[in-house]
């Protein structure tokens, strides 16, 4: 059951300031309407995972980890590996999060990311079957939000995409009795990735559109439009969020913005992946 959430109580003066800034086209943190916050990345911070990435989008921090296991393929997809996306909004990330199983917001984020990866076939799942109908690779993409300053979806998508694209698969061993196991100490071939995908979250305040809302901007937005864009510029996922409607005109503009900013994010990821060594660094700099 979905219940109208209680509003965070923010002094109205401050809220008004946020709205005014957006309408003026100059946001409270100084950005233009179509500017993303700075993106900072650490690749492979979790060596126990087959792939991982820590992404800071402004002050929002997300860690994505990829674990690989062997399992059964889905019944209706006997010739494919399995992709599982989970998002956890752990209570250390925000004063408004409580311990417990994922709520509707965390489930929505993970399902939007799941679809945006699955539909454009970002991962070559067809290469991840071991024995059709019986054994396949299971790709767990687990997303932990650790600091929430708005736009969880885009940060989670970047972290997921980078973690997946840097995942190295362990060696698959076939025993004499025909069973399969993984040698989890090894990291061999890369996980087969078809293409890169980004989500672009667009806030709407009256008739003004802006990308990458921070926490305060999310709180004043009439609606958020999340659009997933693949590296070919196609729309490969969409989710309108928020309690107000949007006009047809707004949605058309959002589609145009999404393609532009989606390709910007894809390029940002591409340049990181072309030079991964620069992004492998300790979590704690002494």
């Amino acid at each position, binding site marked *: 059951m*979905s*219940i109208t959430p209680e509003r965070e109580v923010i002094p109205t003066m401050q809220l008004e300031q946020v709205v005014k800034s957006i309408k003026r086209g100059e946001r409270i943190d100084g950005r233009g309407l179509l500017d993303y916050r700075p993106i900072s990345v650490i690749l492979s911070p979790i060596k126990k995972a087959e792939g991982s990435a820590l992404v800071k989008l402004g002050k929002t921090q997300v860690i994505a980890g990829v674990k690989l296991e062997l399992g059964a393929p889905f019944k209706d997809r006997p010739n494919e590996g399995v992709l599982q996306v989970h998002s956890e909004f752990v209570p250390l990330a925000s004063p408004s999060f409580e311990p417990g199983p994922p709520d509707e917001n965390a*489930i929505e984020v993970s399902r939007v990311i799941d679809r945006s990866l699955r539909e454009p076939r970002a991962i070559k799942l067809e290469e991840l079957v071991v024995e059709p109908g019986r054994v396949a690779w299971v790709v767990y993409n687990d997303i932990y939000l650790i600091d929430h300053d708005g736009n969880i979806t885009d940060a989670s998508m970047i972290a997921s995409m980078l973690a997946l694209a840097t995942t190295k698969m362990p060696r698959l061993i076939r025993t004499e009795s025909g069973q399969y196991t993984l040698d989890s100490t090894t990291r061999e071939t890369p996980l087969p990735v078809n293409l890169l995908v980004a989500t672009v979250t667009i806030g709407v305040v009256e008739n003004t559109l802006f990308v990458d809302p921070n926490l305060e901007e999310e709180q004043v937005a009439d609606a958020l439009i999340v659009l997933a864009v693949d590296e070919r*510029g196609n*729309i490969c996922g969409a989710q309108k969020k928020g309690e107000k409607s949007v006009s047809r005109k707004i949605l058309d503009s959002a589609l145009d913005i999404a393609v532009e900013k989606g390709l910007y994010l894809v390029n940002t990821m591409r340049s990181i992946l072309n030079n991964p060594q620069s992004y492998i660094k300790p979590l704690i700099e002494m």
Partner: protein
Amino acid sequence: MTISSKPVLISEDKKRVDGRKPDEMRPVRIAVGVLKNANGSALVEYGDTKVLAAVYGPREALPKYMTSPTRATLRVRYHMTSFSTSERKSPAPSRREIELSKVIREALEAIVFSSLFPRTGIDVFIEVLQADGGTRTAGLTAASLALADAGIPLKDLAIGVAVGKVNGVLVLDINELEDEYGEADMPVGIAPNLGEIVLFQLNGVLTREEVKIGLDMAFKAAESIYKTAKEALYNKYIKLVEEVKSQ
């Protein structure tokens, strides 16, 4: 379940698996006021997709959840009966049902004058009786009609309709087979009088232009469903008047 190879979804003469043209809806049947206990209710069928919605409220909210001093709190549950799907569905809420409950709640928030009923709760319960594609869109239509039937002031009805892409062709109101084997499913919720979009999702890959054409198709279809919906409301009103007269 037997694994079948991908069927031909668009025949050479541009007909779909069930014989429809690309921009043709399945038969839409709507009845309002079908339950005794609920304050409002509606049963909506898009072809073989059958969805029942009930509304309770505005009512005193249970202590279990908070109310707001400035508005009514909406509680929305989208739920599938266990016999509605090909494989029996466990009655426990799935992650999909949790997401769709949220998406439909947000769509309804956009049409309900919730500020008229502070400190109350308005509960919307949707049960999918049979699922053949488009359950969330039929569910949205049913929910907004149940709200109207309950006498809750609305800015507009919310009409749901899905546009899909199958064998490269954009089609209206996809059924389950088209959803399973097609390239895209784009559910849209429309407030026809306001000309606004209250629900928008995309599961699949489309070009930017295809999305826009698909939206045109959805807006056009929403007009026609809206007419059927208004007739159903009118029919119930007529019946009520007749009942009053006959007393």
